[in-house]
């Protein structure tokens, strides 16, 4: 069952423009010029209950604008939105009891106060009964391992600690959908992984639907089953992450280690790195048979170790962006 339905959504911003320099400033006061910027153009999508969806795109693609319209922050210029059977603008208050939102760059915790104070206040705002609130705070602090941070003012927390508190805070009212806008931005590898594990747990244990935007290919690969890629406010691709990798990932990386130095002469293989014994090769699996290539490589010498891997999703996505940007019909851009 779809719990988010978006039909032909558009959002236009009016932006004041000014010619450069002092003269331009004077002119802008007398005769201001505006230009229209279409942040989102005719966007339609659906999200199913319990799904983990990645909503990805480069900076300025319209990701945050879309999330802001889905959560009732921005009024759409055109189109229809239905989230959990509600209109985000007309039923903003009703909807806010059912959704949770975390903006990596915006805090909902009070900067000078310990998270516990913010949690209690948020509990009151979301009209959670006191006993229940206490129980939920205990559960969430355990799950997010933030129990010993609860009485430290937010300003003294590290970014990773703060984000964990932010996500926990957005779950106090047990939302059915959670919108995460760049939740791992600026975090180190270990903390990123922790956040990802938490998001996975959320989806599995509480069946929370997750709508995630991220720049980080790792987030998408590890968390999401489906990805929607947008650029210039339009959907470029709407596919399962598996298909995305399959269709746009003909390139395979082969790391192979021999007992003695070998020389590779096959022109189908691109040697990325060679240290004599250890060689890193790139193969285009759409052009040549992997079976044959591996057999050939095995014949070259005694193999100690071999791994075949996909290139990181980041590269694939940037390939798709380029391909769509030039409007090409080949997949060359993706490669």
């Amino acid at each position, binding site marked *: 069952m779809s719990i988010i339905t978006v039909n032909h959504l558009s959002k236009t911003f009016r932006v004041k423009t000014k010619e450069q320099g002092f003269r331009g400033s004077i002119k802008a006061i007398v005769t201001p010029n505006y230009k229209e910027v279409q942040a989102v153009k005719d966007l339609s999508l659906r999200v199913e209950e319990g799904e983990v969806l990645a909503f990805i795109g480069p900076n300025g693609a319209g990701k945050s604008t879309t999330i802001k319209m889905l959560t*009732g922050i921005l009024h759409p210029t055109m189109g229809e939105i239905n989230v959990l059977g509600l209109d985000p603008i007309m039923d903003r208050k009703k909807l806010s009891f059912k959704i949770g939102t975390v903006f990596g760059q*915006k805090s909902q915790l009070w900067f000078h106060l310990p998270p516990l104070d913010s949690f209690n206040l948020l509990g009151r705002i979301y009209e959670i009964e006191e006993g229940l609130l206490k129980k939920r705070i205990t559960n969430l602090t355990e799950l997010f391992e933030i129990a010993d941070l609860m009485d430290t003012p937010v300003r003294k927390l590290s970014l990773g600690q703060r984000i964990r508190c932010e996500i926990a805070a957005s779950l106090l009212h047990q939302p059915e959908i959670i919108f995460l806008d760049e939740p791992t931005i600026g975090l180190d590898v270990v903390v990123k992984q922790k956040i990802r594990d938490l998001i996975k747990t959320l989806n599995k244990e509480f069946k929370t639907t997750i709508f995630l935007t991220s720049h980080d290919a790792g987030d998408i690969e590890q968390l999401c089953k489906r990805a929607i890629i947008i650029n210039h406010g339009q959907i470029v691709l709407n596919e399962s992450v598996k298909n995305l990798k399959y269709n746009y990932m003909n390139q395979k990386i082969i790391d192979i280690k021999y007992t003695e130095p070998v020389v590779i002469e096959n022109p189908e293989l691109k040697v990325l790195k060679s240290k004599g014994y250890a060689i890193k090769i790139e193969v285009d699996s759409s052009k040549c048979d992997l079976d044959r290539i591996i057999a050939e490589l095995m014949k070259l010498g005694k193999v100690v170790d071999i791994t075949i891997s996909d290139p990181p999703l980041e590269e694939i996505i940037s390939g798709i962006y380029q391909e769509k940007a030039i409007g090409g019909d080949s997949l060359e851009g993706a490669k």
Partner: protein
Amino acid sequence: MEVKKHLNLIAMYFKFNLSSSMEYRASFLTQTFGMILNNSTFIFFWWILFENIETIGGYGFREVMMIWAISSTSFGITFVLFGNIRRISQMIVNGELDSYLLQPKDVLINIIASGTVISAWGDIFYGLILFMGVYRFSLIGLGMFIFFSFTGAMVFASLLIFANSLTFYMGNSQGIASLFMEFMITFSIYPEGIYRGYTKLIIYTFLPAAFISLVPARLINNFSWGWFSLLIGAVVAWLIFTYYFFRRGLRKYESGNLIVSKL
């Protein structure tokens, strides 16, 4: 029911803000007493003036002190309860309304009540002390004073919300808002008799400073139902007008991507 919910929200933030102001006890006390002292200097100014002149615009020393007391307490109540009023414009520009729009509460009340101005406590106490000093103590008098301080606060608040909400329509209006505030303060602390013609028209309509202290002072001295109804009518009309002005503006809200924290 809705009104009760709004009042509950205001009360909740009031307690929350008060307890967080108390965390910094020294700062709370110095700011409060600092403001009382600051305001007190004006008493001497008027006292010296009235040593030489009998009345100004029909007001004697006592009347001037009374309008001072009412506007000071009104101003204090506005900023103790709705401290974020002075930041609305900036919050709109910075895209700080997002987190309020995500919560199941009335946006305007949620925004303005979620912050406080500590020094405004000084204005409240100053007005109260001044009133008790110049007016003979009576429960009715005190009741009226408190009541009119609240109506005054509503006039202050609605005008400042209006000025700040202009940001939705025309870009940053912080400057206009502070101009409006200065205007409202200035015109509510001088004797009514000195205003004539258009000025008088303006302070009863477009910039309703008269309803903060001048009309209440008249009512405390000489109560009349006609003036009382006019006052209540003006307060309600301004509240409704600014509330809808803000709500309409909200449609034009553009958010933003500035990295912000709740202070």
